[in-house]
């Protein structure tokens, strides 16, 4: 409140705000923690995952007791956040965000923050942002590298202006194949949270209007101007097509009865190269490949990937777990 640009009025606006924190892993932990302490009045935390011990390296809201408790992340996060600030309202939603539930999750929400670990959900958030005129902040990290961009419908380019198509599955590293250096999470999530404080307190004029790209290990920051993206004929923010929100794009899942397996498929995706994927996954587990499919055996799972990106996750009948395994090792 004493920070002059925020002031009493800004603080009151924060207290009256409602934010959807989408994903509460590494980025989401820092986002939720920062906003709770800043006094944002209502946080809705949504996450599909459960805690594992190796999450603690970067997911700062949680501790060993939370892992031992077996609680879903959203619930463990809510418990911690309410202990941090009992004056705010924190809702925990244990769910996989998809086109069937996002509109409901956005009920009354002033803005969304990106704590996700995959592009599929980010395109869904971007569709909803433009469709319902709700600002959001994109943030992504891998290794020591992170990127963030603030999206205000009608004022800034959107995620799809920046990146018209998501990377074909398996072509980009994931936290589980390339690792992630803890501090880059704090850098990116702190910028995302600060952008939220600006927007929620009524200071849209102060938002970051660049793509910020950090390479923390090399101590490099690039602030790339987005001017050239303004006014491109973007399918989302200019043509107002919302294929992820309409359910035409995104994963289509099915539990394979009696096989202890879940199939994930992604209509409309580009072909992926099994050869490149095999190269990427060599260090992760046992990889075998023929021209038609690639198999990765890792932990208790047998993951079978086809060139169209379709995958069968053996070792589970839980769709959320299968999606988590896919995001971990194949990436999307």
């Amino acid at each position, binding site marked *: 409140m004493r920070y002059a640009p925020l002031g009493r009025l800004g603080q009151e606006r924060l207290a009256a705000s409602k934010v959807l924190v989408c994903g509460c892993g590494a980025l989401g932990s820092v986002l939720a923690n920062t906003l709770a302490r800043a006094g944002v009045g209502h946080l809705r935390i949504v996450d599909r995952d459960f805690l594992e011990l190796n999450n603690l390296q970067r997911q700062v809201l949680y501790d060993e007791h939370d892992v031992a408790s077996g609680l879903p992340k959203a619930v463990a996060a809510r418990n911690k956040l309410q202990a941090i600030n009992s004056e705010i309202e924190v809702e925990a939603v244990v769910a996989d965000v998809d086109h069937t539930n996002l509109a409901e999750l956005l009920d009354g929400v002033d803005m969304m923050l990106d704590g996700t670990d995959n592009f599929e959900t980010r395109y869904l958030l971007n569709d909803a942002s433009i469709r319902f005129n709700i600002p959001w902040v994109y943030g*992504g990290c891998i290794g020591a590298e992170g990127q963030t961009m603030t999206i205000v419908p009608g004022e800034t380019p959107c995620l799809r202006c920046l990146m018209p198509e998501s990377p074909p599955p398996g072509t*980009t590293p994931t936290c589980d194949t390339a690792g992630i250096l803890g501090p880059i999470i704090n850098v990116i999530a702190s910028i995302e949270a600060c952008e939220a404080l600006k927007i929620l307190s009524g200071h849209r004029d102060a938002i970051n209007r660049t793509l910020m790209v950090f390479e923390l290990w090399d101590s490099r920051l690039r602030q*790339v101007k987005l001017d*050239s993206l303004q006014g491109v004929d973007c399918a989302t923010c200019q043509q107002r097509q919302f294929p992820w929100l309409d359910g035409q794009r995104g994963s289509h899942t099915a539990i394979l009865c009696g096989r202890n397996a879940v199939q994930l498929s992604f209509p409309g995706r580009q072909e992926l190269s099994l050869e490149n994927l095999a190269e990427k996954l060599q260090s992760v587990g046992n990889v075998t490949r023929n021209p038609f499919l690639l198999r990765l055996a890792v932990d208790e799972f047998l993951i079978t990937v086809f060139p169209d990106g379709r995958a069968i996750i053996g070792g589970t009948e839980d769709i959320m777990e299968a999606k988590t395994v896919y995001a971990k090792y194949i990436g999307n």
Partner: protein
Amino acid sequence: MTVSIYIASTLRTYVRESRAELTSSAATVQEALDQLKREHASLYRSVCDETGAVRRHVHLFVNDDFIHDRAGLETQLAPGDVLAIMPAVSGG
């Protein structure tokens, strides 16, 4: 008369000795990509598709500008310029 090609850390596994920067005498962005194709084939495959088009999730910057802000692949490179190759990052 050299420029630098800065490789995002996630792509360095495709570069010998995982180098962060390569030097080049390329006069344009396209010439720099042609050099990658000759000298660092697996890195090139991560940046460009089979038709030679830059993959749509890979950003190319010259210094702090998108190449679209300049002349795209025909953007001229001056001595001391840095061409950065940065794919989108999905973790979090």
